[in-house]
């Protein structure tokens, strides 16, 4: 079957329910799925944030200090480290006044990959290109 492309679309905000956080950790799991697949088979998620899903992506999160729980920021950095494509909806960031430089990167951990601010049309395209769509 070769590669199967997936679009993970996160529309619920972080720190409300578990869903939007689990979207990220499930996407990261693509890295270890090969142990359960035939040789040559892969799964490639594209992680997209839209609507209220773009909230909770800002850097400087003190979740571990204050609540002893891994921050979304840390999870996002891990995504970049394992080379996942992360798209954040440009229109929705503008709507909430969140600029690109307010979001984290993982340069300090050696990741080249960066969060990509993308128009909704590009997220729509990711959904069209994917075999399956998963809404979180």
């Amino acid at each position, binding site marked *: 079957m070769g590669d199967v492309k997936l679009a993970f*679309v996160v*529309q*619920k905000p972080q720190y409300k329910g578990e869903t939007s956080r689990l979207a990220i950790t499930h996407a990261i799991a693509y890295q270890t799925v090969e142990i359960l697949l035939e040789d040559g088979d892969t799964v490639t998620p594209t992680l997209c944030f*839209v*609507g*209220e899903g773009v909230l909770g992506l800002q850097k400087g999160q003190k979740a571990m200090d204050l609540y002893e729980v891994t921050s979304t920021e840390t999870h996002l950095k891990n995504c970049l480290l394992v080379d996942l494509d992360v798209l954040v909806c440009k229109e929705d960031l503008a709507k909430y006044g969140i600029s690109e430089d307010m979001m984290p990167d993982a340069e300090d951990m050696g990741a080249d990959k960066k969060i990509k601010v993308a128009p*909704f049309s590009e997220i*729509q395209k990711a*959904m*069209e290109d*994917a*075999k*399956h*769509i998963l*809404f979180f």
Partner: protein
Amino acid sequence: MKLAVFVSDFKLTYDTLDRLKADKLGIIFVANGVYHATTKENGEASSLLNKTLNLYALSEDIQTRGMKDADVDKRVRVVNYSDVVDLIFNEYDKLAWI
């Protein structure tokens, strides 16, 4: 793409569905989503009923809430779980639950 969207709530805080495009779009009202098919707000039917001609509502979830299939807007086809399985496999190729 042929996309079936399951709508499981009445009041939605997402506008994703407004922006999604699909060559064939289906909306399947389940759980409290069935109110979109049965209930008007200030006399107006849900705007989701204008999104597509392919509208379905789950009979079991309508009846659970004390309503009848006859209460459903004429544009919406009442389906049961078995029908939903056929829709999933025969009519659409991608699914979303919002």
